[in-house]
């Protein structure tokens, strides 16, 4: 096990997704990187638990959950995030694929909880001019650490693959780990229930990440393929934005980039990272505005 990695324990001693189990089953072996360290994930014929070899010679613990392989480079200090929706029988649980992005994973998380880009980057689907206003919403901290944004409402012309017309959609965002975020979105057919999308962001290095998506959608008239295609399309609209952000790491100093009221959630996220002393993939307060 690499000692003195320099990576803060909150990340080093936590679980991160490094591969999709379906992809690993197909390939037998996947070489990747986590927090700057190279590792190889292998599946031998008999075991569903992959073994992870580190470049440095060590072996890291691995688990399979939600269709993904999770690895902890240090000593696990807590369990993998729980997604109760994934136990619901009337949902499609979909791995929408993993995409490499040339930006800090923290930027990818922040982009996911951002409402004011929807009418531009996802025009025609998750938003549309002139419905650009972001009404006031609430931001709070979660009891176990993390950020929750509630009362988020946004007009969406085609909010999901089953939507046929535009309507105001209710959102709840939860950032549960520095590199993990989930969104609950009111279902267009049964607004009393919600569809869930989680983003597990694998910090490959400070300026590169892999975004792994997990969706738990009410089956309705949907197919699994439709859920996956929709998620891939939406994420790949964000990708060129993320890859054009300068600097690639997320600046935590509030004076580095100008927030507005609509950015309350993003501002809270940056503050929470700062207070938790998360530095990997960030530009800390004291370094440059």
């Amino acid at each position, binding site marked *: 096990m690499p000692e003195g990695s320099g990576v803060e324990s909150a990340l080093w001693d936590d679980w991160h997704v490094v591969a999709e189990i379906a992809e690993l089953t197909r390939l037998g072996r996947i070489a990747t990187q986590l927090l700057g360290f190279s590792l190889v994930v292998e599946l031998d014929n008999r075991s569903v638990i992959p073994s992870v070899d580190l470049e440095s010679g060590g072996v890291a613990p691995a688990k399979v959950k939600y269709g993904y392989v999770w690895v902890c480079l240090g000593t696990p200090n807590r369990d993998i995030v729980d997604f109760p929706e994934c136990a619901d029988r009337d949902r499609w649980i979909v791995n929408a694929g993993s995409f490499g992005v040339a930006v800090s994973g923290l930027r990818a998380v922040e982009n996911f909880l951002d409402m004011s880009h929807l009418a531009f*980057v996802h025009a025609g689907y998750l938003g549309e*001019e002139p419905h*650009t*206003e972001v009404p006031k919403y609430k931001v709070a901290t979660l009891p176990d650490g993390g950020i929750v944004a509630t009362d988020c409402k946004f007009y969406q012309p085609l909010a999901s693959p089953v939507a046929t017309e535009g309507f105001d959609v209710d959102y709840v965002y939860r950032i549960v780990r520095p590199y993990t975020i989930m969104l609950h979105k009111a279902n267009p057919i049964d607004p009393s229930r919600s569809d869930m999308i989680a983003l597990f962001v694998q910090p490959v290095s400070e300026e590169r990440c892999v975004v792994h998506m997990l969706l738990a959608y009410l089956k309705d008239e949907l197919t699994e393929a439709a859920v996956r295609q929709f998620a891939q399309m939406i994420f790949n609209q964000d990708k060129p*934005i993320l890859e*054009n*952000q300068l600097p690639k790491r997320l*600046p935590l100093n509030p004076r580095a*980039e100008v927030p507005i009221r609509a950015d309350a959630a993003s501002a809270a996220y940056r503050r929470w990272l700062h207070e938790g002393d998360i530095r990997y993939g960030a530009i800390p307060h004291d370094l440059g505005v």
Partner: protein
Amino acid sequence: MSDAEEAIRLWFPVSRCEEIVPRNVVQTELLGQEAALWRDDLGFVNAWENRCPHRGVRLSIGLNTGSELRCQYHGWWYASITGQCTYIPAHPGQKPPNVIKTKRYGCAEQYGFIWINLGDQPDAAAVPVLQLDSYTTMRSVFTQAPVDLVAQSLIEAHNFEPATSAGNYILETTGPGEKSVLLLQPMNAEQTVIHGLIPSLVRDADRLSVLRQFNGRVSEMRDAIERAAA
């Protein structure tokens, strides 16, 4: 010459004027700083740091509407000339605070080129003076080599010499006969743009062949320099 502190106070050409076309945004780089160049519909050329003040997205992927530049991420508008943010779509009823502005670089048009200056107090009078009655600008050639190496090989292997007191950034051919002038834009530690002009007007009938010949010569030098740099 390669003193970075010094260079930041100098003016450098970054594009031929006529290549800053309406409703387009040009992405360029000078001394490691990216800039977005765009012309408004009245002809004014803006040179801004290539970052939206909001969340850092490159302005060069934004939309030039003729009077403002709109950022691709959240659609904020930045006015030509001032760089002032004039509209934030997430809060359409509110006037954006005055402090939200793009970072502007010093910008001048001279000898058919757009020149920019990264310093805090750009002085347009300090744009290098070339003794030119007339001129014709040539195609700019991107080179995968640092500016010092480009200048050095132009001088040592291709018969160029410094043309002004601006050091090795502006070079002209030695000896008698029609001169060629090359103006170097140090993009970053690895890349240089070679801009060029000839100090005369070219007849319309000859223009294309002159442009092609000049481009052919500079491209050959570029290829030799890149081989040396590799």
